[in-house]
């Protein structure tokens, strides 16, 4: 039983947290791809800058003496999301829209987004330096330990407050997104434009408005993902840059342009990474009692050594691109 709880701590909780972050980032990527037809590489910078917005707001609130029961990062999140949405709109207006007007190919837009990534990274490092910051300098990070001795386990179920809130917030956001896309006029217009941009225009849909809404949604979700990641680990300038590839992998695995696919892809890759580096020996240890001497389990029995954790996403991506380029939910491909 102890082993089972260990498994839940290491794989289920850890995978869920990672999966939520990947999912929120991937939804933004997939929406931008569906509507604007290009791979927005600078999405990681929307996430990192969003986290920095939240950090600054949290520090500001703390300096005003405001104290809240839940971590300040979550309290300021809605405000930070607004700032990120405005930032995303600004980036599009300044860098991508001019190129789109001149009929630039998707590849050129990808390169432009790389330029944006570098500039934003440079600016963040310029203002904040290359070190790390913590959301929890002035408040404690609550850790919940659920005693599971009634189940026969010697280990408690461990989950931190940010992690728990993260999962709840993600669920709420996914539901909100679902209602937006299926019940609201603008949400349906977004789906229409992703489905058939020319027909959407012919139907009289204001395509410029839909593009703006897309950036607002993508920017807000990216801010959420980045802030949650920073709350779970620490805030550094290359916070999200390291995970941009798993996020793209999640979007592609789920089918580019399919919002639900992106969520599924994010969770899949989050769990896959946690599962891949999980040390099975800890769980299978009781078996050592029944196995003969020669077949004793080694000290660490993991599918993939821990150093290769991020590589798991790349491998999944390559395999999916080979086997089913349209992804789980059949999005766009070649």
């Amino acid at each position, binding site marked *: 039983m102890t082993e089972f709880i260990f498994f839940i701590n290491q794989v289920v909780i850890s995978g869920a947290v990672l999966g939520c972050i990947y999912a929120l980032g991937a939804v933004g990527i997939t929406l931008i791809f569906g509507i604007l037809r290009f791979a927005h590489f600078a999405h990681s910078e929307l996430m990192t800058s969003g986290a920095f917005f939240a950090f600054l707001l949290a520090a500001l609130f703390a300096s005003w003496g405001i104290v809240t029961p839940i971590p300040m990062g979550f309290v300021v999140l809605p405000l930070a999301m607004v700032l990120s949405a405005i930032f995303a709109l600004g980036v599009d207006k300044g860098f991508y829209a001019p190129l789109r007007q001149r009929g630039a190919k998707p590849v050129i837009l990808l390169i432009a987004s790389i330029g944006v990534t570098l500039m934003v990274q440079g600016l963040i490092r310029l203002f904040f330096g290359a070190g790390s910051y913590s959301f929890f300098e002035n408040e404690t990070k609550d850790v919940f330990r659920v005693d599971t001795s009634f189940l026969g386990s010697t280990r408690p179920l461990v989950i931190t407050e940010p992690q728990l809130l993260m999962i709840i917030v993600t669920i709420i956001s996914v539901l909100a997104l679902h209602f937006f896309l299926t019940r609201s006029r603008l949400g349906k217009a977004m*789906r*229409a434009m992703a*489905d058939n941009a*020319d*027909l959407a225009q*012919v*139907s*009289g*849909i204001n395509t410029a408005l839909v593009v703006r809404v897309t950036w607002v949604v993508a920017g807000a979700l990216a801010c959420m993902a980045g802030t949650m990641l920073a709350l779970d680990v620490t805030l550094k300038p290359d916070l999200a840059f390291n995970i941009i590839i798993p996020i793209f992998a999640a979007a592609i695995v789920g089918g580019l342009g399919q919002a639900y696919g992106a969520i599924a892809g994010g969770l899949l890759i989050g769990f896959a990474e946690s599962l891949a580096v999980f040390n099975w020996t800890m769980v299978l240890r009781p078996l050592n009692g029944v196995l003969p001497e020669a077949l004793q389990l080694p000290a660490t029995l993991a599918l993939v050594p821990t150093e290769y954790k991020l590589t798991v996403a790349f491998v999944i991506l390559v395999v999916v691109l080979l086997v089913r380029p349209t992804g789980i939910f059949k999005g766009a491909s070649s």
Partner: protein
Amino acid sequence: MALIELKHVVAGYGGAPILNGVDMAIEQSDIGVIVGPNGAGKSTTLKAIFGLLKVTGGTIEFDGEDVANSLPDKLVPRGLSFVPQEKNVFTSMSVEENLEMGAFTRRDDFKPTMDWVYAMFPVLAEKRRQPAGELSGGQRQMVAMGRALMSKPRLLMLDEPSAGLSPRYVIEIFETIVRVNKEGVGILMVEQNARQALAFASKGFVLAQGQNRFTGTGAELIADPDVAKSFLGG
């Protein structure tokens, strides 16, 4: 004053113009049909009216106002609607959602219009929750038309509505077009099925090499030996 009037319209996709001075006029009571050989500029005329390509000469007057080179999202609220020939439904969205998209520019309650469309196409009412991509060709064409009608247009433009349809659906589509016209919507359509379409056209235009060669009622054009010989084929 005609509902829509084209005067010496010159338009193209960038290089050499495809329309070289097209003149035509339609009333709200008309069913206008454009026929002619391939490459004559039939579809191009509709696209030029709807702002989908650049008009470099002449005027397109809708209600007396020049709307040349306006974008669709400005034209639809004025009362123009367009059904493209291909990819004319949102395949991943349900029939009802397709219709809702047609009403995007409307601010008022469009349920009565939706009921009217369902009354006109009963089979769509049955399949309202199905994704449009799962329907047959003829049913898709109905969804496409329904979508265009949701904005309560005064002029409905259709690009080869009978293309690729089985004969039974061709008749049904043409009958629907006549019915829609009787309910007060002007029609301007391009057709390959020239004879069949001209049979109920109140105004026919024969386009060749980017210009309007013959104008008359449908019946007149069918009866005209020059037209029949050169342009109507079989």
